[in-house]
């Protein structure tokens, strides 16, 4: 459903993505692993239209996203839970979730989806009237993902959902990602390679802006080079 071909992105003189090609098929979880500064967030931001590519194409169900503004890309069914959570800290949990459904008008279905988000992330339910800035880091991550789900996306982009979280919270978030995959295709970006490879179907390895490896996760997780560089074994 998502097809990225030969993408090149620059920040001034920095070549952040160098002929990157990635495919995501309907129903999959695909992960992109890579170290700090590899270009993972840049890739997601380019898909969402926040960053413009110098060359190459991004298409979603056959539509070229290259010149679309971010809000039109959301309208096509791509939701992005950005790095660092980026919740609206002064707004309540409920308002954050409402903004996630900004483009929707189907009130009843929205209520059901809200209920589903609260079922997945029970902690958000009791905190719905609380300003998002007062949530813990883990709760903010849940809100960030929940907010993205409220747009009822066909494709969910997740940027380092485990960042800065204690191991038990990482487990919890990943448990819920398993739940979410039942109805949404996911492109997951992670530094926590072990978690990502355990969860996803296929993986790409990004190193300083280049894809250096692409394989099913079951293979990547056993690969000696990956083990040494990314899994610390």
């Amino acid at each position: 459903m998502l097809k990225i071909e030969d993408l090149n992105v620059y920040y001034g003189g920095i070549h952040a993505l160098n002929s990157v090609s990635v495919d995501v098929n309907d129903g999959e979880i695909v992960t992109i692993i890579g170290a700090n500064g590899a270009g993972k967030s840049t890739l997601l931001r380019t898909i969402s239209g926040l960053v413009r590519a110098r060359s190459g194409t991004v298409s979603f169900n056959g539509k070229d996203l290259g010149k679309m503004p971010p809000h039109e890309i959301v309208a096509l069914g791509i939701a992005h839970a950005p790095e660092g959570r980026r919740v609206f800290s002064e707004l309540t949990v409920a308002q954050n979730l409402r903004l996630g459904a900004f483009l929707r008008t189907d009130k009843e279905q929205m209520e059901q989806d809200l209920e589903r988000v609260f079922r997945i992330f029970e902690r958000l339910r009791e905190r719905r009237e609380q300003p998002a800035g007062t949530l813990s880091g883990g709760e903010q991550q849940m809100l960030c993902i929940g907010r993205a789900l409220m747009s009822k996306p066909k494709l969910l982009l997740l940027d380092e959902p485990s960042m800065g979280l204690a191991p038990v919270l990482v487990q919890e978030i990943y448990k819920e990602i398993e739940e979410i995959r039942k109805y949404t295709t996911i492109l997951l970006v992670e530094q926590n390679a072990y978690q990502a490879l355990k969860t996803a179907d296929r993986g790409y390895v990004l190193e300083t802006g280049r894809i250096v490896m692409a394989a099913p996760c079951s293979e990547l997780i056993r690969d000696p080079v990956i083990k040494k560089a990314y899994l610390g074994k």
Partner: protein
Amino acid sequence: MRELLQQLWNGLAIGSVYALVAVGYTLVFGVLKFINFAHSSILTFGAYVALYTMLSKVAPFPVALGLSMVLSGVFAMQTELRAFRPLREKGAPRLNLLITSIGVTLLVENAIVVFVSPDFHVFPKVLPGTPINLSGVVFPPVDLLLVAGSSILMLALSYFVNRTLTGLSIKAVALDRDAAALMGINVGRTISITFFIAGLMASMAGILVGMKFSVNPSLGGLFGLKSFAASVVGGIGSVPGAYLGGYLIGFLETLGAGYVSSNYKDAIAFVLLVLVLLFKPSGLLGKGTQEKV
């Protein structure tokens, strides 16, 4: 006592002007994080639209008022679209936006001098001439209209910002523009709406001070500056702060003029501004650390 009540009423009336204009500085700062000095020219623009609509006798006052408010909103929106947006899209630093906004003000004022008229105009008489006198406290009709009109606009704005999805989207853009875009919010359109509202409110202020005093090409200048001071005093970015700052300056100014000396009347807003910046740089209702403006 009678004297004090009179001063308080006068303060409320002029404070309404500052509050109406201050909220525009604050709204625009919220979404774009710069002080839009062109905002004071919207005040002038609005007063002229209403003045000429009345002079040409094509429409009654309420229509002139409404027309001016809508046109001023559109005018404010156009300043953003034509002057600020191209700069932002080129990634220009905020200082350039600020300087451009001063340029826009000069342009508007001088365009009025050249193409309209450099003179002072008395606004045609549209309200009953006799002030209401309640046991010695005088309520001029224009002040009553000012207080009523500004209250209605402020209540409407509060409702809009706090209770509607579009209002919520303005807050979202102010808090985090990229994250707002990822919600599907059309950021450009939201910024336009913000300018429209700011212009609409400034126009009402411009028309009523025009009626209270006179209409001239630099009408917006001092009112604009004091309102800017009000928005910073209240905490720039905060809508209730802008109201608070506006009324506070209105009251202090009239009380100062009444009980101390009217020579320093125009300095009071700026003295207050300096004091607030010294002791609470984020403003009375401002949150946490504000970026330098």
